[in-house]
């Protein structure tokens, strides 16, 4: 399914960025469907969208995970945007360029843009925001760890200096660390009503229930918003979400694989956000020394029925995972063999490693991973690995395995970054909180560093593909199991829906039929 659709990423390198960026500026956010859409949309139309997660605070630095970035992007603009196919497009920065191969970055900012409190947007705001994100107590801190200096050249020009070259830095600014706040907000720390330059204004915010938005009349790109109002409704339960879209309570929903067929059968249109999450298992040898043995990790990886999980549990709405770059994303290695489901082979490996009797573990899992965890529990039992499942609530899984490790094994869902290198680094490098047992994959760190300084797109892609080979050879501290899709369903009353791959919900250009 990913053979012919691998997307080219024209902006992945630093050289020649400026020209391309300017070319794209003309059609930012605009698509062919949109001009026709505006003719048939109801200017008074409002839409209601169901979301599985809702923000607790409008402070992006307190964002718990990358899943909800699109919600912040409704009220805050990114420095650099992404189009439906994950290509970089201008945002608050119209141009970006690195003259020295990725260490210093020069940004040209949009003029005549203002925040929704009436203050003008300028380079000081960007500087204040980035320094805030890189500071103490920020969840986005790791994203900007390599940023050493932000220099305001003038009101609309900015120079960012990194500690070393990273040609993937623009992708960082297209993610959560590139959501721009006003310098006044950063100073006051008051996020009660968000001040941004984004497409929407928050009209009403009922914590943990819903957020109502109205269009920002002063947004620099008025074409992206074709509705008079937008409501995000928090619907955590997957069945309730499916029920909501089926009974037309909401116009758009994100579905679990178990619900997708029924919703399609009920006549709703859907599209897939492919590879939206990596489902897998984190391992911590500090708490279970045998996990330091690559043979043991390989045995565990081989005793997982990926095909059964993808087709039986996810009803085919996903793909087997054998590497850390999703199918269709830049750097994916399609030549790599799947990790075989081989109980006999796994038993043999365990015996060779000196553990013919297997072991017993406690495995933590998030409640929404229950069926995957139970399937893995059952197949591991066949190689003598007995697992007791526990389902710590909320952030408990991350806490028990990463922050304050007490449980050696856990199923975890990882949301990939746009650029592969920070994702690889954050989860697999030997000195990260996500790899508390410091499991080393030979050659991986060198490849990550090489990718960060390689501007040539073809070479860079090849290096990233090689990371797949080394992590396939030596299973890291995280066993990849499945790339899980999001299925997005939408009502037939909507026009201009595009298959955005950057997340959910992204509503640029969406309107309501007249």
């Amino acid at each position, binding site marked *: 399914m990913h053979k012919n659709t691998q997307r080219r990423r024209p902006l992945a390198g630093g050289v020649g960025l400026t020209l391309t960026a300017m070319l794209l500026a003309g059609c930012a956010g605009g698509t062919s469907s949109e001009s026709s859409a505006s003719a048939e949309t109801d200017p008074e139309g409002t839409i209601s969208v169901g979301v599985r997660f809702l923000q607790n605070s409008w402070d992006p630095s307190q964002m718990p995970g990358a899943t909800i970035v699109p919600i912040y992007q409704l009220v805050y603009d990114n420095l650099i945007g992404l189009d439906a196919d994950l290509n970089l497009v201008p945002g608050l920065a119209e141009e970006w360029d690195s003259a020295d191969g990725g260490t210093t970055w020069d940004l040209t900012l949009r003029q005549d843009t203002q925040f929704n409190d009436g203050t003008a947007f300028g380079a000081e705001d960007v500087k204040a925001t980035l320094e805030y994100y890189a500071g103490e107590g920020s969840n986005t801190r790791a994203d900007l760890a390599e940023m050493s200096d932000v220099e305001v050249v003038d009101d609309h020009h900015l120079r960012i200096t990194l500690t070393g070259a990273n040609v993937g830095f623009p992708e960082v600014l297209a993610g959560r660390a590139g959501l721009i706040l006003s310098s006044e907000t950063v100073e006051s720390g008051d996020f009660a009503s968000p001040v941004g330059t984004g497409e929407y204004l928050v009209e009403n915010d009922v914590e943990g229930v819903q957020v109502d938005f109205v269009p920002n009349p002063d947004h620099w790109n008025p074409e992206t918003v074709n509705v008079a109002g937008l409501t995000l409704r928090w619907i955590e339960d997957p069945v309730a979400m499916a029920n909501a879209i089926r009974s037309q309570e909401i116009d758009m929903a994100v579905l679990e694989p*178990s619900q997708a067929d029924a919703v399609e059968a009920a006549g709703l249109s859907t599209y897939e956000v492919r590879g939206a999450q990596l489902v897998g298992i984190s391992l911590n040898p500090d708490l279970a020394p045998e996990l330091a043995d690559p043979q043991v990790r390989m045995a565990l990886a081989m005793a997982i*029925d990926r095909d*059964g999980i993808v087709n039986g*549990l996810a009803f085919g709405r996903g793909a087997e995972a054998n590497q850390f770059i999703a199918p269709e994303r830049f750097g994916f290695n399609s030549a790599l063999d799947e990790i075989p489901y081989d109980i006999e082979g796994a038993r043999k490996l365990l015996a060779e490693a000196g553990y013919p009797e297997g072991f017993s573990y406690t495995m933590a899992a998030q409640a929404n991973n229950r069926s995957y965890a139970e*399937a893995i*529990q059952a197949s591991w039992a066949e190689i003598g690995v007995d697992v007791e499942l526990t*389902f710590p609530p909320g952030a408990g899984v991350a806490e028990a395995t990463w922050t304050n490790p007490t449980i050696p094994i856990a199923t975890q869902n990882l949301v990939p970054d746009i650029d592969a290198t920070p994702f690889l680094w954050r989860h697999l490098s030997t000195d990260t909180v996500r790899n508390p047992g410091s499991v080393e994959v030979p050659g991986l760190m060198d490849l990550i560093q090489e990718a960060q300084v390689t501007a040539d797109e073809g070479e860079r892609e090849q290096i990233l593909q090689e990371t797949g080979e080394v992590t396939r050879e030596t299973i890291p501290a995280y066993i990849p199991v499945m790339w899980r899709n999001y299925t997005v369903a939408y009502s037939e009353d909507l026009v201009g829906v595009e298959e955005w791959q950057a997340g959910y919900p992204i509503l640029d250009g969406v309107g309501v039929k007249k």
Partner: protein
Amino acid sequence: MTQTVPAPAGATTLPVAPPKRVGFLRRLAQQKLAIAGLITLAVVVLVALFGSLISPYNPDVTSLGAVLLPPGSPGYLLGTDELGRDLLSRLISGTQVSLVAALQGTSLTVAIGVTLGLAAGFFRGWVEKVIMFVTDVLMSFPGILLAIAIAGILGPSLNNAMIALGIVLAPGAIRLVRGSVLGVREETYVEAARSIGTPSGQILVRHILPNVVPPLIVYIAILAGQVMLIEAGLSFIGVGVQPPQASWGAMLSSSFAYIDRAPWLAVFPGLMIAISVFALNLLGDGIRDSIGKKVTR
């Protein structure tokens, strides 16, 4: 053997303590519905005790190539669940989980109820005042919410949920037992026994308990049904039993995700709950009618 209390000399006015078990059993035996309930429950208990012997599969073994098979599929009488586990085997093992949970919650409630209820009714005075006050307080808490809060704070597990539930439901039992004690306390034969210096413990065992037990049994039957239903609700919101173990309520809860393509997953555990609670109610009603005097909640 129910002809109790050999009258001491001079105490000829002592009436005979009431419940006659032979009469009770005969009356109960005549209640067809109650007997049906009793038989149903017996079957359920037998399944819980010896289910592993008749279970066609290991209830926890998955078969991802055979998920959500409909009832009557070759090898799977009732079909399979979302992980390809045999539904019949799951139901059988769920019987045990559900019954043990009901037993835990019910027995805790009854233990608290009997202890405090007896104490309140027997000792009266400040003991009763304190106990009844605490009862009033506990009764003001929305039971399920408090159980959720407690189970949530202690960590979600069936044990925690049932302990919380047992405490939350206790006031009903306390009131019932106290009421029964008060009902018999002032009876002439108890007064008489006391007046001739029978020790308190003996009075309690000989005269008071026999009056407390029959309504208590009725209450237990109804209560067990309630506990079963609440356990299902708690499992539904995720503070009950944890996988791979599953009670009927937990199975029902996870079936909702597949209600379009596999409605039988919701039907069978739902039926098991409904049938068991129904049987308990029938039995309770039957016992109440057989006791021969009015028993109120």
